[in-house]
């Protein structure tokens, strides 16, 4: 029996909800933000005040609040708000594609490895282990070097980099679940292995994988924006948040921060929203992999 004060203290501590971002309000705010951003991306042509490529030569690098340009203009005279709205399209679509493919692939590989165990598991795990030695950004850079700039190569590279993380998580979960009594009882009833894995196991591990995917979206967004910033991903003059920050570097030297700040804020708020969502899902089910 552990001493009463410690047990009490634990209970007392648990009663305190962690305030702020982790509270209910944080989740609602995050979901709201993501909905807004997604809608903005989809409805860009309708709601954008200007054409994102239209250069207003009379007001280069004008500050936020200039009439007609709520968030100001960049060094080429383009409206920042419009570019952010249009930029949401590629800036959100690319990570989405990345996460959907890498999560699906990773889950498939991980479930196979975890379910089959033995040699297959060993081999697959070893292969995944090697990929861990390469930072995602590096693989993406190599992909760009081989296949050229644009959005495809980085996505392919990052898929290769992200899949092992999901695979490792899925494998661990399946290996654990496999030993639980309900799986054994299904087996005895005559259900085939793959059937059990797909219809019974998957739904049980799906929430954890979902939480991980939410976090991965954030990482993916950052990595892809980084590549665009470096000039390896989305190319200017396409509106993309990473490209916008890169373009802003000129303006920085003239002392104007907002050109970089607004797209940067868009990135950060999106990533934070996904992190909050991911954490909320993880807390719900009580376990996640420390990314």
């Amino acid at each position, binding site marked *: 029996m552990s001493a009463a004060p410690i047990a009490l203290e634990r209970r007392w501590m648990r009663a305190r909800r962690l305030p702020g971002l982790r509270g209910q309000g944080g989740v609602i705010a995050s979901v709201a933000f993501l909905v807004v951003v997604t809608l903005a991306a989809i409805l860009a042509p309708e709601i954008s005040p200007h054409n994102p490529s239209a250069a207003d030569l009379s007001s280069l690098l004008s500050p936020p609040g200039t009439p007609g340009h709520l968030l100001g203009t960049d060094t080429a005279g383009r409206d920042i708000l419009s570019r952010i709205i249009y930029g949401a399209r590629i800036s959100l679509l690319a990570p989405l594609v990345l996460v959907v493919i890498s999560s699906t692939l990773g889950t498939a590989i991980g479930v196979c490895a975890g379910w089959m165990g033995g040699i297959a598991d060993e081999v697959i795990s070893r292969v995944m282990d090697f990929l861990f030695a390469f930072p995602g950004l590096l693989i993406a850079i190599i992909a760009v070097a081989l*296949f050229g700039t644009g959005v495809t190569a980085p996505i392919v590279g990052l898929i290769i980099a992200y899949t092992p993380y999901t695979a490792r998580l899925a494998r661990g979960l399946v290996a654990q679940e496999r030993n639980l009594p309900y799986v054994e009882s299904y087996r005895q009833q005559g259900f085939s292995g793959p059937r059990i894995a797909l219809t019974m196991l998957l739904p049980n591990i799906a929430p954890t994988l979902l939480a991980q995917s939410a976090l991965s979206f954030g990482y993916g967004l950052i990595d892809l924006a980084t590549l665009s910033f470096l000039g390896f991903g989305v190319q200017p003059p396409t509106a993309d948040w990473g490209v916008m920050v890169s373009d802003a570097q000129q303006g*920085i030297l003239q002392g104007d921060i907002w050109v970089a700040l607004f797209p940067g804020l868009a990135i950060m708020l999106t990533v934070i929203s996904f992190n909050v969502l991911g954490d909320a899902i993880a807390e719900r089910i009580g376990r996640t992999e420390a990314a």
Partner: protein
Amino acid sequence: MLRFCARRLGGSLVTLLISSFLIFGSLYLVPGDPAVYLAHGRVTAPQLAALRREYGLGQPFFERYVHWLFGLVHGNLGESLQYHEPAARLIGSRLAVTGTLVAYAAVLIILGGLALGLLGALRRGTLVDRGVLLFSSAATAAPAFLTVVLLLAIFSVDLHWFPALGAGQGFGDRLWHLTLPAVGLALSAVGLITRVSRTAFLDSLRREHVEVARSRGLSERSVIRRHVVRNSLGPVATMTGLVVATLVVSTTVVESAFGINGIGSLLDSSVQTLDYPVIQAISLLVVVVFLVCNTAVDLLYPFIDPRVASWRSRAA
């Protein structure tokens, strides 16, 4: 103990070998003729043939690989297509600067992460803790390139506290020049380590041996130092080890923004000029850094937590 070292080393070498195979083979994933790729198309037929001979592209794959490996062991990391210099020399000359930058960032990450994590844990639930968590969320969500651009704008261009360009000469000057880049490089990881260490500290604070120490009349400061911090170092060490290799790649962003002539900017220019041999060499370097860091953490771990028997490897 010795057997453990040998096993770890052996494992690392295998990983290195296979990684090198992947790096070597990646060239052949190029759509089209690797020779044309390496030559960037601006050559004549005889030059192409010469290139093919030089890279042994006529030989069977495995032979090429072994040949390349052989060269590696002798310090030949290939020749830069851009500079026409050995890649090893290019990297070597830049190692000091980037090394200092990464080390600087690592120190900031460890110290900053531990300090903030401890602050949050000791003041759990208060406004200070909320601030710490908010900071760590924002920091992990801030891409390095954004941090760097904003730091430049505020502290360099605006306030003139730090220089905007270059890596400086001499120890003190170099540190001054590398401060903003190091912060830019480190910020995201500081957020991560803050979170990890805070969790570890909270866990340690709940342990009974902390209560026992207090009951024996030790000052709160002693208790925290000897029984809380000391017990929480494990997860922090592991995380930091994993993060360092990523730092090296992130220098690509930081160095180009600050005009530092290091390995990161070399990688950047190599991609732009499609200088593949250099890209391969740097990739190898990154893998080596990753393996060295993780092996170091594994070897140090029994000192951090004696319960981990030194002849058993930690679960990955």
